[in-house]
């Protein structure tokens, strides 16, 4: 069977570097002014999956991000990894968008790319973002585009005859699903360890042009984005202190200590599978 090329849009979110020291403003929000933005680590699995599919089947991989203009630097990394081109969707009118508004804007960017490429077979994204961890974007983009979506995809096993067969993580195991293309897949798990690009690729990525699209370029309805288009309201942010209550069983007889530990855990509603 000859490989049929697939065109892939991979959604990447620039986030505050999870390794950076984050400062909070008095109102509880993150001070984003002085922190470095990086590609959401979860999205890098999706990027790796996209590149592996391209290497195997051919086709084109286009990255799409929605962020303020200065996020452009963070996107160089996915170009270095092997994404063919990256588009940054950036417009002051998008500020304050929640996941519903964001997924709407991203879905229009996907449509515009589809017009340019003729067809988009797959939209890939990470399972969630490291800064807000909602996991909404993949399924919501699927809804806006009117195409199926699968979340928690560990591995894309095969693509043929207009379908993708994917291995999907479920609690305690996995399931294998067949999904009609085009589709949105949220990639989770560790099957796609993100590659580290060579310095030559890193330097070449720095010289590449990154297109910046505003709201008009994708023809979006301003009433559906930004704060006005976002039903989600952030009412208040506060810091939660998580206290760990360690309990040490000092019985000299280990079996007795274990029995006590098990009964304590059961009392707390922990399922031990026995």
């Amino acid at each position, binding site marked *: 069977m000859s490989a049929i090329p697939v065109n892939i849009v991979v959604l990447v979110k620039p986030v505050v570097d999870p390794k950076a020291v984050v400062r909070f403003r008095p109102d509880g929000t993150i001070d984003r002014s002085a922190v470095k933005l990086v590609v959401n680590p979860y999205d890098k699995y999706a990027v790796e999956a996209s590149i592996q599919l391209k290497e195997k089947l051919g086709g084109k991989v286009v990255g799409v991000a929605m962020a303020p203009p200065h996020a452009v630097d963070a996107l160089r990394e996915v170009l270095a990894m092997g994404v063919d081109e990256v588009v940054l969707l950036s417009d002051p009118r998008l500020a304050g968008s929640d996941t519903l508004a964001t997924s709407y804007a991203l879905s229009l960017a996907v449509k515009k790319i589809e017009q340019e490429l003729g067809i988009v077979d797959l939209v890939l994204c990470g399972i969630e973002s490291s800064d807000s961890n909602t996991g909404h974007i993949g399924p919501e983009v699927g809804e806006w585009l009117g195409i199926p979506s699968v979340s928690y995809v560990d591995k894309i096993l095969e693509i043929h005859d207009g379908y993708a067969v994917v291995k999907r993580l479920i609690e305690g195991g996995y399931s294998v699903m067949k999904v009609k293309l085009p589709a949105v897949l949220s990639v989770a798990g560790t099957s796609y360890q993100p590659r*580290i690009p060579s*310095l*030559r690729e*890193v330097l070449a990525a720095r010289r590449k042009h990154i297109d910046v699209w505003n709201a008009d370029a994708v023809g979006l309805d301003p009433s559906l984005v930004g704060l006005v288009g976002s039903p989600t309201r952030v009412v208040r942010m506060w810091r939660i202190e998580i206290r760990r209550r360690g309990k040490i069983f000092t019985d000299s007889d280990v079996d007795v200590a274990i029995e006590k530990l098990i009964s304590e855990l059961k009392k707390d509603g922990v399922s031990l599978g026995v």
Partner: protein
Amino acid sequence: MPLDFEFTKEQEDIRSTVREFAEKYIAPKVVEFEEKQEIPIEITREMARLGLFGILFSEKYDGLGLDPVTAGIVLEEIVRADITFSLAVAYLVHTSWGYVAYKYGSDDFREDVIRKAARGDLWVGIATTEPGAGSDLVGITTTAKKNGDGYVISGEKAYISGVREAREKDAWFELGGGHVTLAYTDKTKQHKGMSLFFVPLTDPNITIRLEKEFGRKGWSFGSFVLNNVRVPETYRIGDEGRGFYIAMEGFDHARAYIALACAVGGKRAIELAAEYAKQRRAFGEPVATFQGIQFQLADNWARLEAAHALAYKALWALKMEQEGRIGRFEVTKIAASAKLFAVQAAKAAIDDALRWYGAYGYTEENPVALALKAVKSYDWAEGSLDIMRLIVAREVLGKEYIARRR
């Protein structure tokens, strides 16, 4: 040119890429370096794939065409992940001496050897020291005799880094490696009769012997005997009689990188020990709250900051020299000052930091203890500290104050 401590975006990209690699591939293996006395082969192979062995070589020869400051950034990330300095040796020796070989080697040599070095298929080391000559290089006895279209080299080199890694093919490097080797082509002319040659250690007429190294055990250290080793004329690096001078230039490069490695390694040791001092409690408090530790920390950190800045000044001077904007002797003076200062700053800092651990400082699992043994090597490597002092004094006082040979 304005003074500016900022790195370019390209340099920041390179730093974050190398950091990701170093955290993922190097850091988890560091204790093994010392235990097994070798670096896992996949690490040097992966470094080759990333292009880390080709930083300074021109793109024409498959290098990246970058400058010594950028090479320093890569070194910083390697040292942060491995303060046993084993990989620092592997990287900085190749980077310095590979560059000198590239600069003075012929086009044929570049095509034949440098291209492989740039791809990381072959490692470049340095061999000047002998059992009877180190600081006093005029005392070397290795000779290279012209013979047809090549040279025949005989002699012995001692206390040389990377002899095993260069000897073995299909191991750390696909093709093994070779050492930039100092030999007399005309003994009567003393240092003006020396020449440099690239000598592949894979040559069957070479035998190697390994020393039991005191520290940084991941990268081999030993001697090799050359018994009528034949190299083509193209393997001569620079003109006959220029070997001593070219070697001095190579030392400037290596000393700048060593200074940086020491500054960063020292800082890393302080960071690691400081984390421990926050956890370790004595007399009812974390020991980090004691001013006895805090004052040591501050004094050492301040010296390391100075060493760090001076090391980058030396790398900057090497870059300026490449652009013809600064003289040879000025570079030599800055590089020697940098090594002289940074090695001492690092040794003092690591020694103090180790004491914050209590008796746990005196174990081989403690990375800071391994760092202390490693930096000790820089009392000698690439020019002893006293030679650094003589160089700085000579450049400040003038050549007429060089002590006479008796």
